[in-house]
C-alpha cells in the first residue's frame, strides 16, 4: 500500500493506518535483546500504530535464542525466527523481511546502536509517499580511522556507481514499503546495498538523520571487512540492477571499442604488409587479433546471459509494477499493488 500525505492531510484514516513490522537481527546479543525489546515497545506504543516485532536469531551461541523465545511467549507481537546456524547479516535481514507481515517494514541493528525512538520520523517520511527511507548516522559513534573513513569512501563510491546517493549505506535503520522490499532479491552480503539493489524497482528514496549510540555491550560483529568484497559486490549490483534484462546489449556495448580497435589495428597491419610491402608488424596485428578475440568471447557471454535471463524467474515487469502509478480518468490511484 502506498500512502500519500496530500490525500490524508489530517493523518491516516484509521482503516488505512499501516501495520508496522520492526525487524531486528540478533547475533550473540544476550545482553542487548531485552533492552532492545523494551526500547522498541516504549517508542512504538507512543505512536499508536499497530505493529509487530520480528526478531531473527542468526545462529547465536549464547542465550539470545532462549531470551527471544521467552519474549515471544510473553508478547504476541513478537515473532521469532531462529536460524539453524550463523549465516550472516544479509540472510538474517532477508528472513526477517520474509516473515514480516506489516505494510511498512523497519529494519534495525540488535546492538542498541540505533534508537527505536527514531522510528516515528521514518513513519512520517513514509507517509509523504516515499518507498524507502534510510537513516543517516550523522554523529556516528565509531572509531574514526578503522570505521568512519573507510565507510565514507565506500558510501561515496556506492552512490556514484549505483546512482543512489545515500550518505550512510551502513546504517541498518531503514524503512521500506513491505510489498516492495519483499520482491527485491537479497543474498550474499548485500545488506549494505539494499537501497541500491532496490533501485531496480525505481523507488523514491529519502534520507533522514538518526541518532547513533556507542556500543554498550559486546564487540562489533559485522565490520567493513574487506574492501575487495565491497568492490565486487558493487560491481554485481551495478550489473544486475541495470543490465539484467539485456545482457547481450550490455556485453556488446562493452566490446564495441574493442571491436573498433581490433579491426583498425588488423586493417592497418594488413595494409602495411600488402600495400607498403613491409614486414607484417607482429605487435600490431597481434593486438588486433587479441582485441577481436576478447570481443567475440564477451559477446558470446552476453548471448549466454540472454539464455540465463530467459530461464530465470526475474522479470523487470514485476519491479515496474511495484512503483507504477496508474491514472484513470484524471484520478491517481495510488494503490495499484494488489498482487
Amino acid at each position, binding site marked *: 500500500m502506498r500512502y500519500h500525505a496530500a490525500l490524508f492531510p489530517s493523518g491516516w484514516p484509521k482503516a488505512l493506518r499501516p501495520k508496522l513490522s520492526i525487524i531486528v537481527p540478533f547475533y550473540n546479543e544476550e545482553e542487548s535483546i531485552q533492552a532492545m525489546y523494551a526500547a522498541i515497545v516504549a517508542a512504538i506504543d507512543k505512536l499508536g500504530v499497530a505493529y509487530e516485532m520480528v526478531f531473527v536469531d542468526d*545462529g547465536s551461541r549464547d542465550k539470545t535464542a532462549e531470551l527471544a523465545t521467552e519474549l*515471544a511467549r510473553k508478547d*504476541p507481537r*513478537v515473532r521469532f525466527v531462529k536460524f539453524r546456524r550463523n549465516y550472516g547479516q544479509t540472510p538474517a535481514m532477508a528472513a526477517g523481511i520474509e516473515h514480516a507481515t506489516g505494510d511498512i517494514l523497519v529494519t534495525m541493528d540488535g546492538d542498541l546502536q540505533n534508537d527505536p525512538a527514531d522510528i516515528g520520523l521514518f513513519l512520517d517520511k513514509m507517509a509523504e509517499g516515499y518507498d524507502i527511507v534510510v537513516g543517516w548516522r550523522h554523529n556516528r559513534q565509531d572509531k574514526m580511522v578503522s570505521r568512519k573513513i573507510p565507510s565514507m569512501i565506500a558510501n561515496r563510491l556506492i552512490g556514484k556507481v549505483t546512482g543512489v546517493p545515500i550518505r550512510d549505506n551502513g546504517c541498518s535503520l531503514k524503512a521500506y514499503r513491505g510489498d516492495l522490499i519483499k520482491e527485491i532479491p537479497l543474498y550474499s552480503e548485500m545488506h549494505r546495498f539494499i537501497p541500491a539493489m532496490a533501485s531496480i524497482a525505481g523507488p523514491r528514496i529519502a534520507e533522514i538523520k538518526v541518532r547513533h549510540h556507542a556500543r554498550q555491550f559486546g564487540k562489533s560483529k559485522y565490520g567493513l571487512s574487506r574492501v575487495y568484497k565491497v568492490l565486487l559486490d558493487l560491481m554485481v549490483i551495478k550489473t544486475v540492477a541495470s543490465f539484467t534484462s539485456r545482457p547481450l546489449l550490455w556485453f556488446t556495448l562493452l566490446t564495441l571499442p574493442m571491436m573498433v580497435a581490433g579491426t583498425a589495428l588488423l586493417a592497418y597491419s594488413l595494409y602495411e604488409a600488402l600495400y607498403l610491402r613491409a614486414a607484417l608488424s607482429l605487435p600490431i596485428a597481434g593486438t588486433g587479433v587479441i582485441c577481436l578475440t576478447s570481443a567475440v*568471447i564477451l559477446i558470446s557471454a552476453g548471448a549466454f546471459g540472454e539464455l540465463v535471463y530467459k*530461464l530465470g524467474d526475474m522479470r523487470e515487469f514485476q519491479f515496474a509494477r511495484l512503483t507504477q502509478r496508474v491514472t484513470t480518468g484524471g484520478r491517481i490511484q495510488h494503490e495499484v499493488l494488489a498482487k
Partner: protein
Amino acid sequence: MTQRPEKTISVIIPVGWRSANAVELYGEYKQGLDATHLPYQVIFVIDGPNPAFQAGVESLAKAGEPIQIVNLARTFGEATAIMAGFEQSQGNIILTLPAYFQIDAAEIGKLIAGLDQADLTVAHRWPRKGGWLEGLRRGAFHGLVKLMTKIPMRDLGCGARAFKRIVLEEVSLYGDQHRFLPMLADRQGFKVLEVDIRQSPKDRFEGVYGLREYTRPFLDVFTVFFLVRFTKKPLRFFGMVGVSTFAIGVVLTFVMVIQRLFFNHQLADRPALLLSSLLVVLGLQLFAIGLLGELIIFTHAKSIKDYQVDRVISFPRGAEHQPVTESESADGF
C-alpha cells in the same frame, strides 16, 4: 517439537565394485542393529551388476530376512545409490553402511546415539591400521579438505554415517559427493559429529589402489570447495582471479610499451608480449564467467535461499499455550 517421534532406522547399503560376502556382512550388521533395540529396515542398493553379491542377498531374502533390494542397471556411483535407497526408505533415521567390512558392527549403536546431539554422525575408524603410505595419503587428503572447506574431518572414506531424514531431504547428492556429505550438510546448517568407531578386523584392502583412487578424491575436493564456498558469490572467485590476471597482463604490457617507446626494445621478438596479451584475454574471460554466474544467481534468487530457518516461534493471542512452530526447509545448494 513437543513429542519426540520414535526412532526408526533405515539402513542403506550401497554395493559398488568392492563388496564383501553378502551373507557374512548382513549377519554382522544384523547383530549390531539388533543391539540398538530400534525398529529397522535394510535396503541393499546394488550399483551395477554384481553376481556374487546378488546371489548372496537373494539367498538372504529366500531365507526370510526382511531385506529390500534395489538393483541399478548400470554403475551410477555411490551417491546415486544412496539416493536410490533413500527413496525406498521410511525410517526417520538413515544409516548408510559400507558393503564391505570397515567398522566393527557392534558399535553401530554409537552412531545412532550421537544423533541426540547432532543431525549427522560420521564414523571415524579409530584405532586405525594401515601402512605409513596409506596414512600419508589419508593425511594429505584430509588436510587438503580442511584447507579448502575449513571443516576438519578425519575419515571421509568411511561409509558408515547416520543422519536424520531431513538431512538428505535438503542436501541432494550427485556424483561422488557422498564422501563430502558432512561438508554439504554443514553448509546447510546441520550439526555434524564425528564418532570414534572401532575398525573391523577384516577391513583390509588387498589390491593396489589405482591412480584413479588417488586423483579422483582430489578432483572431488575441488568441486566441493566450489560448492561450499563460491556458489552464492561466483564473482568473488572468478572476479578476483580474473581481475588479478587482467592486472598482471596490463602491467606487463605497459612495461613493454614503455620499453618500446623510450628504450627502443623491439616488441616483435619478445615472447613476453604473447604472455601479457594472453593474460589480459584470460582475465576478461574469467570475469565474464563470474558475471554470468552472478546473473544466474540473481535470476534465481527467489528459488534458492541461502539460509535455513530452524523454526519460527510466535504465540498469537488466544493460543497462549500453543506455540505456532513451523519448521521450514528450502532447497539450497
